[in-house]
């Protein structure tokens, strides 16, 4: 019987091998695995055998049944894969380039914000319609201060104004959080300017402020260098020079080695080798005091980054008016990161 089984096994194998369609395979299946198959009839005869033979023949016939069954399954799936409706498409068709975009300002703001967050700054915002107090008085810009002339302000019927800088966020943050403090505030600002390729009445800044015990000018230089390193992705050479802003004392202009000529001198940097980047300074004691922070205990620094200028520089946008044009043909080039 064992011999017979082995012959059946070989026969089945070769029949499976030559079967090339589903029908003939099903026939092979019924021939060898069906109720009336020879293997079935051998199985039926098992009961007449000795215990030893029963074991041997039973095992072998099960083994062969499984084997044939698996071979048929395998062959069937091959036939199916070959015969079923072929997937047919042109995989070289182009993809659409029609993706959404963010505004250039959104992108550079996020770039700076990401760096500042890593350094432990929290991000705050403030209203675009501001009070005289937050925009001027709380920042040591008194009613008769020439700075109010320097920044031509849009005044509103209700006595408020459109903020001329993001610095009101300094005052708001000091009032809300007190000291110590580490905030950054990106936002939109407004000045009464006539529009041309270089001037906009609506533009973006980012304000930064650090207040703690024992904050020194040395700390300011260190932090600013690191922020710029983050923005420019390399070490940058900076210098501080005196600058005048009523809400800081001492006040600085921070210059970086001109990125165009690398300090050799070019028309962009007026041959000085340095490019003016951001105003900064130690927070004026009066500003701290006005917001309820004791200048005898705390000191700090603040800085402003011109996001609009940064965006124009990053994308090589020559005409500032593009930014508020809403023109899709211009803005669709920008991307998301």
């Amino acid at each position: 019987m064992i011999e017979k089984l082995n012959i059946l096994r070989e026969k089945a194998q070769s029949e499976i091998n030559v079967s090339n369609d589903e029908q003939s395979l099903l026939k092979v299946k019924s021939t060898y695995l069906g109720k009336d198959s020879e293997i079935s009839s051998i199985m039926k005869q098992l009961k007449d055998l000795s215990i030893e033979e029963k074991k041997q023949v039973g095992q072998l016939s099960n083994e062969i049944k499984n084997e044939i069954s698996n071979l048929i399954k395998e062959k069937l799936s091959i036939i199916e894969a070959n015969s079923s409706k072929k997937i047919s498409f042109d995989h070289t068709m182009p993809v659409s380039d029609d993706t959404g975009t963010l505004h250039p300002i959104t992108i550079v703001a996020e770039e700076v914000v990401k760096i500042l967050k890593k350094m432990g700054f929290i991000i705050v915002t403030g209203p675009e319609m501001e009070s005289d107090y937050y925009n001027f008085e709380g920042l040591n810009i008194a009613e008769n201060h020439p700075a109010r002339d320097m920044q031509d302000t849009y005044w509103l019927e209700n006595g408020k104004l459109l903020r001329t800088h993001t610095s009101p966020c300094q005052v708001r943050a000091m009032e809300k959080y007190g000291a110590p403090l580490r905030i950054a505030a990106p936002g939109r600002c407004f000045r009464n300017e006539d529009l041309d390729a270089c001037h906009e009445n609506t533009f973006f800044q980012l304000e930064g402020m650090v207040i703690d015990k024992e904050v020194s000018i040395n700390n300011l230089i260190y932090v600013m260098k690191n922020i710029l390193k983050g923005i420019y992705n390399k070490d940058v050479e900076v210098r501080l020079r005196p600058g005048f802003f009523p809400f800081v004392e001492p006040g600085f202009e921070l210059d970086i080695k001109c990125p165009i000529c690398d300090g050799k001198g070019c028309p962009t940097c007026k041959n000085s080798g340095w490019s003016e980047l951001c105003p900064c300074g130690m927070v004026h004691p009066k500003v701290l005091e006005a917001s309820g922070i004791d200048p005898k205990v705390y000191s700090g620094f603040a800085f402003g980054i011109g996001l609009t200028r940064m965006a124009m520089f990053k994308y090589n946008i020559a005409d500032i008016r593009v930014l508020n044009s809403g023109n899709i043909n211009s803005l669709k080039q920008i991307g998301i990161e």
Partner: protein
Amino acid sequence: MYISSNRLKKYIKNSDKIDWLSMWNKFTIHSAEIDGIEIKGSDIKNVVVAEIKTVEKHPNSDHLHVVTVDAGTNEDLTIVCGAPNLYVGMRVPCALIGGSLKGLPKVEKIKLRGIESNGVLASEKELGISDNHTGIMELDKSYQIGEDIKKYIPIDDIVVEIDNKSLTNRPDMWGHYGIAREIAAITGNALLPLDIYDKINETKSLNIKVEDSVNCNRYSGIEIGNISKKEADIEMKVFLYYCGMRSVSLLVDLTNYLMLELGTPMHAFDSKKVNNIVVKNTGDEENKFVTLDNIERTIPKNTLMIYDDNKPIAIAGIMGGINSEIDEDTNSILLESANFDATFIRKSAVALGLRTEASTRYEKSLDPNLTILAIKRFLYLLKEQDEEITINSRIEDVYPNVLTKKEVTLTKEMLRKYIDVSLDDETVTSILKSLDFEVEVKENAYLVTAPTYRSTKDITNEADIIEEIARIYGYDNLEPKPLKLDLVARDGENKYELEYEIKKYIATTTNFHEVHSYLWYQKDLLNKYNINKDNNLKITNKSDNNILRDDLTISLFEMCLENSKYINEYGIFEIGSCIKGDDEERVLAILNVCQEQSVDSHYHDLKQLIYNLIKTIRNKKVVFTPSNIDKSYLQNNYSLNILLDDEVIGYISLLDKKMARDCHKKIAVVNVELYIEKLLNVEKNNIKYVEPSKYPITNIDYTIILEKDELYNNLEQVLNKYNHKYLLNYQLIDTYEDTVKKITIRFNIGSYNKTLTGNEITEFQNDLIKYIRENKYDIVDNK
């Protein structure tokens, strides 16, 4: 402001040892920004003093002359020259062969109409020392023939332009002497005192009355007579020209010179035209007044003026009048040296629309102590130019608002806090003294007294003194130091993050573009669509388009009108501020411009976008309910409120057909707004995991029949009210419209406790069918 290095050199000891070019870089770092450096005289080479020997008409020209000059060379030179003012014996500047002049090619031997010319005679303009090009410059007879012209005329100079803005808070630096003081401190050289004329013995008094002693801090004057010289010397003229001024006459030049030197404006009245000086306010009167520039101006109310008794003769601190000006016949003057309130002068200049060199300086808060010094300096310089002058009065001085020196106590602790470097008492003292501050060293502090010219507004507190020390010490000498480590996680607001997240979500999941629009409406647009925003808040000092927006969608629609000229289908969005009365809100607006025929799918996609957005950022599901939105330009039969936690957080709708078609024909515009603050207040849903049922779930599909124009929303309300213990949830599977609307719903039924039996399932089916039919809908089993 232009600064002449030549002039500065005269005020500083050992100034010839200073490398002036690199010094100006230091100046930028320590004091104020340099806008530009111009090296004067580098283009003037080999120009000598020559005397004209003969002048003849050129035989082949009706305007050229042939002259011979003695230029100190072996032989007289023949030169062809077209200037009209040549005469024998005239001393002139002559550029020799190989030399050069401003704006001309290098001097070479050339033939002019047949005659060889061996040099060029120069005008003042060609020497770069004035704009005068009417003739050849006539030189003083005392100049030696053959000597280089630069020996007599200070043509070589380094002129720098200082950024006026960087001097806003430094009234003391609005003159050369103040700049020299800074340079002396930076370079460690001594500042030389100014030469002044102090021997005033005359006792005659002048009638000067200050009526408005609030706005006039000080008024000093003196009368000077017997002035005969009319022109300033060449050195002063060149200096004025290099500083951007024009030489007018000796007296005018001298007042200008004093302003450029000390920073304090002066004014000279013809003393024959003036009797009694009265400084008073125009009060409620408006005057007509002709200023020096011969323009009749309306002087606004509340302007400070100088009167001769009752006749106005000058606008204080801004400009003199034509009725008292010095002219060719003037030989005696009443010299005004005054000090006025900075803010008052600034406001007057703005009101008049007349900002002058004088008012620009006064508005910086000048030191009133300069008035007397300036008079004495003026006398010295005038005497140098014209020895014969007489001093006809004493210095009359009315000084109602006496300025005191500012005293500041700077604690050493504060200094250390600001500047993280150890500075000994000697360093601190010597820096401050170099800037003319007095210092008294105490154990824990410095008692610092500022000079008067720094006491008008600039120096008020410790930080101001620290700035002086730090900037002279040098910011570049301060080592950068990290902040102390602080590992506290701080709470903040989340608005920036939320807005960024929303914008990025939209930009990454759609093909829409973020735009920025202005905070005010275009009036034309409002008019065109009859949108009335007259009650909105307005900008008072903006003439056109001054209505602040309270509706971001309108701002974006304006951009659609523009974009639709080029593109058919697109989406734009913005998160921006809207001004609603005294409040400000942040709003997200989306406008999706699409073909009318596919508006249903665009509308649906936007709905899906909002649903997915909120689910992404808040783990919550929004609900859309039909509702009227209070905007005249929406098709409210297509409006849905967007609800989150039962609160309206926005809407979705379609813009008015006419507006949409203004973009392009057959165009529809889908519009979404979300209110950021509302969203900000919604907390994230904390998802709690629920173990899924271990028992099988059975799906049963039914098609429910609606009238063709009935909204799905009606059916949904019916379905939402249906409760059955085995109904887990249901979904819309398919819709089909022919004469009716066929909606296929899949009901998922099951239990957490057991496998449902056939009977239980049938029981559910019967119950559901009954319920649906009770609600007047036909229902068909899909099996």
